[in-house]
């Protein structure tokens, strides 16, 4: 008689719908990279030693650098190893200007954004409130702040601004990502830098599995503290990591997202850590933060285990007014979804939403919570790929994976609709970062996904639904110009929805600062309520759907603010 213990290690199923659900119009994407004239290959310089940095790069930002109303695209790039220099143009970071006709023009060199060092992540935000969005590039050996001069060029102001990412007494840690937010509600964007492992090319050891060299587990290295830079308002920043207690929490950061999860008026920080408990850094409102992830129930998954946290997003997924947390992870983990219960507590609802079955056998990096079909329920996207480029040899699992799309059914259940999302979702690749925004201003959220050693994917949303939408472009006056951190509530005939302005989404990446709502069949937004970070409240009534509405703080809409 055979008598082995069952080892149900992996649970994974593609969700195939639930009884009683009506067929919905598909969410459909088309990869338009070939016609976009975007000529970019993300180079990571794979070495025989398999330095860990190689598998970690791939940031992308969608932002409007020249204020022409069109989202442009910026990619980070690797460097030569071991010199860690962008020794030739193939390693340059790249900026592509949106021409408005589906094509893009490479403007990297005239913009002065080629960059230096082995770059990883990117964060966009108008830190000096001059109306032009600036760029922060986080990297392994160099972090750079690029000030947008407003004339199509950028200036590297890293040293003057004091945001080089160097930690006094420790040197330059490996930065993976960054994000802009106004932590002290002074109307100026502050900068949070996510750091990963205490790792050096010169001292890195080699790791092997069954005599095959592979990338080391993060468990082989210590973590590093993150950094908080406070904006002084004069073009310089102060490192307040110690004073704010941020440096107390040493992790292995991968993703960062911001939201005021407890509604106290101060923006909080979620950091997804790699094989290490996540951080939920509660903003105490007095310049300090406290990690409450364990008590809140978001440090570990529901089995009390750490997971390989990747890209993250922090948004209200069930329209109850409380921001929830999603992050991608590694196969065997499932991608956790934590529902905000409203009392400082979160509930892991990965199982009950069906996401466990849909995600357990996959690994993903970039991630985002957006309403891709404009039906009023935010869906989830995750950019799939294993970690090791020799994953098949080492883990018997494929390295390239497709992207994943999980439709929010509105009843706290999700459905895997990847297979219906178009041919681009069948294309397996070494996906990394993903950035979200409406590239062609048709009201549907598009996605740009990076691919290691490959061309990026420009996933244009071609969903054939006739749902209505509204996109809000916020202009802060007393607040930060981008309006980041502003909480928005809308009311339509179909109910209430919530969102929050942020560019810190996913892995390595930065998304459009505009705030997106799908309206279903509602042609009017009865009420738009904004709560700006400094406390300014603003209400707009009877706003027509299907428009990109600019809302200037306390001044009402600049155009299209009422029913025609």
């Amino acid at each position, binding site marked *: 008689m055979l008598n082995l213990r069952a080892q149900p290690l992996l649970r994974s199923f593609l*969700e195939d719908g639930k009884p009683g659900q009506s067929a919905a119009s598909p969410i459909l994407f088309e990869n338009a990279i070939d016609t976009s004239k975007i000529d970019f290959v993300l180079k990571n310089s794979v070495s025989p030693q398999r330095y860990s940095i190689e598998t970690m790069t791939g940031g992308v930002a969608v932002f409007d650098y020249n204020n022409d109303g069109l989202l442009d695209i910026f990619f980070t790039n690797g460097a030569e190893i071991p010199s860690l220099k962008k020794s030739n143009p193939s390693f340059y970071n790249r900026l592509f200007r949106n021409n408005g006709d589906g094509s893009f023009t490479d403007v990297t060199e005239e913009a002065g954004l080629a960059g230096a060092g082995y770059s990883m992540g990117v964060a966009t935000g108008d830190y000096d409130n001059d109306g032009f969005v600036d760029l922060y590039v986080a990297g392994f050996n160099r972090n750079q702040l690029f000030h947008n001069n407003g004339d199509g060029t950028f200036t590297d102001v890293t040293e003057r601004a004091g945001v080089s990412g160097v930690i006094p007494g420790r040197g330059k840690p490996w930065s993976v990502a960054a994000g802009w937010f106004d932590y002290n509600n002074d109307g100026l964007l502050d900068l949070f830098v996510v750091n990963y492992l205490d790792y050096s090319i010169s001292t890195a050891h080699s790791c092997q599995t069954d005599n095959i060299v592979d990338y080391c587990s993060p468990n082989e290295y210590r973590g590093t503290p993150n950094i908080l830079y406070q904006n002084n308002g004069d073009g310089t920043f102060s490192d307040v990591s110690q004073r704010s207690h941020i440096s107390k929490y040493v992790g292995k950061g991968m993703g960062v997202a911001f939201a005021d999860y407890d509604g106290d008026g101060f923006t909080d920080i979620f950091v997804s850590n*790699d094989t290490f408990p996540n951080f939920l850094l509660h903003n105490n409102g007095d310049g300090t933060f406290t990690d409450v992830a364990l008590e809140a129930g978001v440090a570990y998954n529901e089995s009390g285990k750490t997971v390989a946290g990747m890209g993250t997003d922090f948004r209200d997924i069930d329209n109850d007014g409380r921001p929830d947390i999603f992050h991608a992870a590694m196969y065997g983990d499932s991608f956790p979804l934590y529902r905000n219960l409203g009392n400082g507590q979160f509930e892991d609802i990965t199982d009950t939403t069906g996401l466990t079955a849909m995600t357990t056998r996959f690994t993903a990096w970039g991630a985002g919570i957006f309403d891709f079909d404009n039906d009023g329920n935010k869906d989830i996207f995750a950019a799939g790929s294993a970690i090791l480029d020799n994953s098949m040899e080492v883990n018997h699992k494929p390295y390239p994976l497709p992207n994943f799309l999980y439709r929010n059914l509105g009843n706290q259940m999700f459905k895997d609709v990847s297979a219906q999302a178009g041919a681009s979702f069948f294309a397996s690749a070494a996906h990394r970062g993903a950035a979200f925004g409406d590239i062609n201003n048709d009201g549907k959220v598009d996605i740009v996904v990076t691919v290691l050693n490959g061309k990026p994917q420009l996933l244009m949303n071609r969903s054939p639904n006739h749902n209505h939408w509204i996109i809000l472009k916020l202009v802060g006056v007393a607040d930060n110009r981008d309006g980041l951190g502003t909480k928005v509530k809308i009311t339509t005939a179909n109910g209430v929805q919530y969102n929050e302005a942020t560019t810190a989404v996913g892995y390595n990446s930065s998304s459009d600062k505009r705030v997106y709502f799908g309206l279903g069949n509602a042609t009017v937004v009865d009420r738009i309520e904004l709560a700006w970070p400094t406390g300014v409240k603003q209400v707009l009534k009877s706003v027509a759907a299907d428009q990109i509405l600019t809302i200037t703080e306390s001044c009402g809409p600049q155009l299209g603010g009422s029913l025609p």
Partner: protein
Amino acid sequence: MIWLLALQLAVGPAQHYEKAKEDFAQQRLSEAVSEVDAALHESPYMVPALILKARLATFAHRPDVAKSCLITAITVDPTSEEGQFYLGLLYYVQNDFKLALSPLQAAQTLSPKSPLPVFYLAMTQEALGDEIKAQDLYQRAEDLSPHKSPQSAEILVAYGRFLLSLGRTEDSIEKDRRAIEADPKSRDAHYELAKGLDYEGDFNNAAREGERALTLPDLDTTDAQIHFLLAKLYRKLNEPDLAKAHLEKFQAAHQTTDK
């Protein structure tokens, strides 16, 4: 000389194999390896010895040796249910799910009344993402498993976990309850039931099941996992002191995953 030859004949491959089996059962692994090697030295294609060597190689973290032995075994005797099953199992634990299918299916055909090949086929199909096949196989494994045994409890727990991962909480709870009936001392079953009851909002009974799980032998579900769940449950039950105590115990014992 004749005496020595007679002795060698007396301790033939079958005897070496029997001795190896006995050593293996007694966890005398190095002795078992010596004996099974002696058996295979004299009879290189002795299928039971090849299978035993494969099992020993698995213990020694040598899946390459185990695989080689099992492939030889089923080549010599394709009707070896054990050979087919262990090869399928080896592929399964190595995440080679597609390769696991064929030998597990062969083992199922050879031993249609045995629940284990069906059970591992269910988990393999689960890992491959075929929900419909997996559910059918789980059900068949449940039907085949001896009633009220630890084995049937394990099958039911895995079946329940599978259903829970699909968001089918009520169905999952039903399997967990039946697992507890089959094996009241199954820690996994009590833990999984506690999770299901938590999802259903029955926090009191969930906490009771969690506390019960803590008292049972630790095989698969760890103390840390249970403390973590209990901390959450007692928070919901407005028992902050108990929640804090379990959180502290969790922190003392918490695990990290390997990447």
